[in-house]
């Protein structure tokens, strides 16, 4: 701040508080609804004070899901989501580390061609190649499997780039020393490159975990069995019957549960999250 203007500072705090309130409103109302009975929610206007059904709603959601929508238990969906998010984030980190290492530390025919092949995938998000990708998965008999849910999402140009940029900054002396000492390339990879990349991996993990957890279009296409629904898809199926048929108390409890893991990852790993966000966009 350059000068003292108490009125201006007060206005700044007020605007920020208002902004936070607007941003928080939908989640607050969701939380309140998740603590009431369905009848209380259907009263217009619904009360904005938390009710007493918190435990009952969350237990019902986790163990049996929305009975009217005949959904699977949300507990099961959370497990599927977690497996998908973890597989996608670790898978992306591993294969990107390997290919970036090859591209930076080796000279071989077709190196630049491979590099560009990976680079171009940036321009082909799932949304623009929906049907043909679905056909590939169907032909491989991977519908309703974890492999089908995760493998097509694992190739990542951004992660490969991030690691490539980072490897370029590792001093040449380290590789030189490793070579003089007779270390094999993989030894150098494990003992030097991987430990040095830890911060970058943490930053990427936050971004990729959220990416994996929040996938929508892809699981929507390739899961038709209740037992393979991720929690995001599960909610969508619960509200498909329209206002009258929706058990909003259960849906709202499920929504809170679906938001919790990625929100926790962001808040607990805030430092790496900000780093990851800024660096993957470079």
């Amino acid at each position, binding site marked *: 701040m350059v000068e003292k*203007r108490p009125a201006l500072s007060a206005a700044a705090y007020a*605007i920020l508080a208002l902004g936070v309130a607007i941003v928080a409103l939908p989640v607050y109302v969701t939380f309140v609804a998740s603590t009431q009975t369905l009848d209380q929610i259907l009263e217009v206007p619904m009360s904005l004070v938390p009710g007493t059904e918190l435990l009952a709603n969350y237990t019902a959601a986790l163990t049996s899901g929305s009975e009217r929508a005949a959904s699977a238990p949300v507990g099961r969906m959370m497990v599927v989501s977690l497996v998908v998010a973890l597989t996608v984030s670790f898978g992306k980190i591993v294969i990107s580390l390997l290919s970036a290492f090859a591209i930076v530390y080796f000279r071989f025919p077709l190196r630049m061609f491979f590099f560009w092949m990976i680079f171009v995938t940036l321009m082909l998000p799932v949304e623009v190649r929906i049907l043909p990708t679905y056909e590939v998965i169907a032909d491989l008999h991977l519908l309703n499997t974890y492999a089908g849910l995760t493998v097509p999402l694992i190739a990542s140009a951004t992660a490969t780039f991030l690691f490539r940029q980072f490897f370029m900054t590792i001093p040449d002396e380290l590789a030189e020393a490793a070579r003089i000492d007779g270390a094999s390339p993989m030894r150098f990879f494990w003992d030097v490159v991987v430990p040095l990349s830890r911060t970058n991996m943490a930053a990427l993990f936050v971004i990729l975990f959220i990416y994996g957890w929040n996938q*929508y279009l892809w699981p929507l296409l390739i899961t038709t069995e209740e037992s393979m629904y991720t929690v995001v898809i599960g909610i*969508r199926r619960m509200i498909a019957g329209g206002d009258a048929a929706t058990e909003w108390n259960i849906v709202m409890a499920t*929504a809170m549960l679906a938001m919790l893991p990625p929100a926790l990852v962001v808040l607990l790993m805030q430092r790496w999250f900000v780093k990851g966000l800024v660096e993957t966009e470079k």
Partner: protein
Amino acid sequence: MEKRVVFRSRWLPYALVAPQLAITTAFFFWPASQALFQSLLLQDPFGTSVQFVGLENFAHLFRDEGYLASFRITVVFSVLVAGIGLSFSLLLAVMADHIVRGALVFRTLLIWPYAVAPAIAGVLWIFLFSPAIGILPYWLAKIGIHWNHLLDSRQAMTLVVIAAVWKQVSYNFLFFLAGLQSIPRSLIEAAAIDGAGPMRRFWTIVFPLLSPTTFFLLVVNIVYAFFDTFGIIDSATQGGPGQSTTVLVYKVFQDGFKGLDLGSSAAQSVILMAIVIGLTVVQFRYIERKVQY
């Protein structure tokens, strides 16, 4: 930029890039080439007859009133999402940059919507805006606005824009705040000594210096509105009422999976690919410029 020290092996580098290349080929290049190929064919939904029709699918699309309308809807949608989203986040970021205490607390309070899935964001907002039970239509009725996004196409558009902006606020806010904090204090102090008030300083110094960040976010937000809002549209309006919120990405899905019009869906995919490639090129040209600074 190249490494001076490298390792030697005939087979190792190929083994290292193999997993990524295998996935890329099977799930990116093969489907993309299939989309290109199918866009030139006319098939019936059961795949019993296939006919090569050249560019007929494309010509058909550009004569199709529904497709052109979807184009216009997408443009309106992304302009609104980018415009409102950037203004709102910039306002909050400027305020957070201005205050002395608590900027980090506000950052924490504002970044978590990034973690919410677009489809969930859609569900939260239709609950708030539900014509039958929502709390906002109840308040709006008190000031004389009758809200029903299931019937009114403008209100449906408003709803998806609000949900899309809400989800993107954190991202824009973080980048704007970082941009603002990298502007040298001395410039602003000098202007203050010369007697320029806060508004004048913002428009003549801060805003121009922030323009690289703003431009970057503009491109990111347009890409976001074009492609990442599928979940919001599907959970909030399913493209309706009528076709009023059917953006291009949603139309590919509708025509391909619900309508089983494979040739048309593939042609739409190809047009979308061209748009992504165009936007990516713009983004990279901008980044190259930034590197030279």
